[in-house]
């Protein structure tokens, strides 16, 4: 967490302060949306699958999209300092702005797809378990299991990978975009389960998002973990997930 605080402090004092400003504005906008609208209509959960009529699902999509974009802006923009520095340093002055925009577009595309996938997955979980809390517990259990695997450590290391970006011509434009795509792919792989948690429990959505945000900041700017299986985390995760399924089964 010390690394995350140092990174945020450096961002606030350096030229990348707009990332923090964007994040703050998005958090405020999200909080406003949540206070002004019925939370469940924005945040997914079982209501999309059980309560709303088919037409209703599509009619709330624009709000969903806006909320997803705000969520991305709030949670992901402070994670991009390292990547954007890499893009700026390897781009000619004339195309720095364009390179940054292309990178961000590339970064947002997989995340938007992933967020809609997570939204649907949270609905399926809640439908199968018939309880938001059980869905949350299963998600947290799965996240702990994922946290203890080698794949998770490799995904975080992938987030730290910096490419050599071409400087001239169409290759430079394409490379900025594909760097965004690749970074987002690693980022999704590293944090998808922590991002799923807020979708499963509408009441605590904002708090779970803040928790996931803190975790992701710590992981991105801290020392990457060693690539090994963490049996305690995997075991705890399995117990939590199985307990939640049993609870849902008994309660249902």
């Amino acid at each position, binding site marked *: 967490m010390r690394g995350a605080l140092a990174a945020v402090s450096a961002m606030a004092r350096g030229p990348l302060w707009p990332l923090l400003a964007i994040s703050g504005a998005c958090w405020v906008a999200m909080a406003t949306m949540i206070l002004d609208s019925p939370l469940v209509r924005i945040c997914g959960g079982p209501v999309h699958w059980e309560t709303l009529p088919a037409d209703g699902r599509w009619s709330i999509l624009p709000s969903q999209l806006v909320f997803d974009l705000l969520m991305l802006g709030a949670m992901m923009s402070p994670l991009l300092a390292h990547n954007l520095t890499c893009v700026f340093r*390897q*781009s000619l002055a004339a195309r720095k702005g364009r390179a940054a925009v292309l990178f961000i577009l590339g970064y947002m595309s997989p995340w938007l797809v992933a967020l809609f996938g997570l939204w649907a997955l949270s609905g399926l979980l809640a439908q199968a378990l018939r309880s938001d809390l059980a869905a949350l517990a299963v998600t947290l259990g799965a996240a702990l299991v994922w946290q203890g695997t080698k794949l998770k450590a490799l995904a975080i290391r992938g987030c730290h990978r910096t490419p050599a970006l*071409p400087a001239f011509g169409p290759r430079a434009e394409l490379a900025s975009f594909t760097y965004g795509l690749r970074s987002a792919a690693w980022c999704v792989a590293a944090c998808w389960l922590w991002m799923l948690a807020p979708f499963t429990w509408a009441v605590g959505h904002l708090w779970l998002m803040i928790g996931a945000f803190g975790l992701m900041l710590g992981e991105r700017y801290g020392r990457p973990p060693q690539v090994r299986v963490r049996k305690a985390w995997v075991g705890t995760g399995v117990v939590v997930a199985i307990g939640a399924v049993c609870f849902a089964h008994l309660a249902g």
Partner: protein
Amino acid sequence: MAETLNSELVGSNDQVVALGAQTVESEVKLAPGPLAAYAASYTADAVARDKPGEPDRLFIKLHHIRGNQGACVFDVYVNVPGAAAPGMVGSLALFGLEYASDAGNEHGGSGLTKTFEITEEVDPYLPELKTAGKILVGISPRGMLGPNDRVTVDKIDVYRLSAR
């Protein structure tokens, strides 16, 4: 984290260079705008001994050097087309290359990155540099490389550090 505000990318070779048993040469294309800005920094005041300030400085950066042979040392040369013999700017010691190249390491296998100042080698040939719009970077092994030894440089960039 914070960007170095007074440094600017001037050019790049935009290709992977595979180092071998023989000297390898790569052409680094320079963008006209930053090159003109570099040339313009050579004002009478900037080069006068009795006045403060100095012209811009130039550096080459070898990005993402990866491979399986960290014991070999390479000499790095820079040459401006149309100028005299290449000037040696330094040596590459690749200690830790194998670890830095491993995709499972902390930085995802980004390899090593080395920087050399080339101002002294380039500034006597400023007119030639402006005409050519490129420099040649040569990398020559000092020891022996075996047939299975592999060392690559993902990209060579030229940066200008403004004295302003």
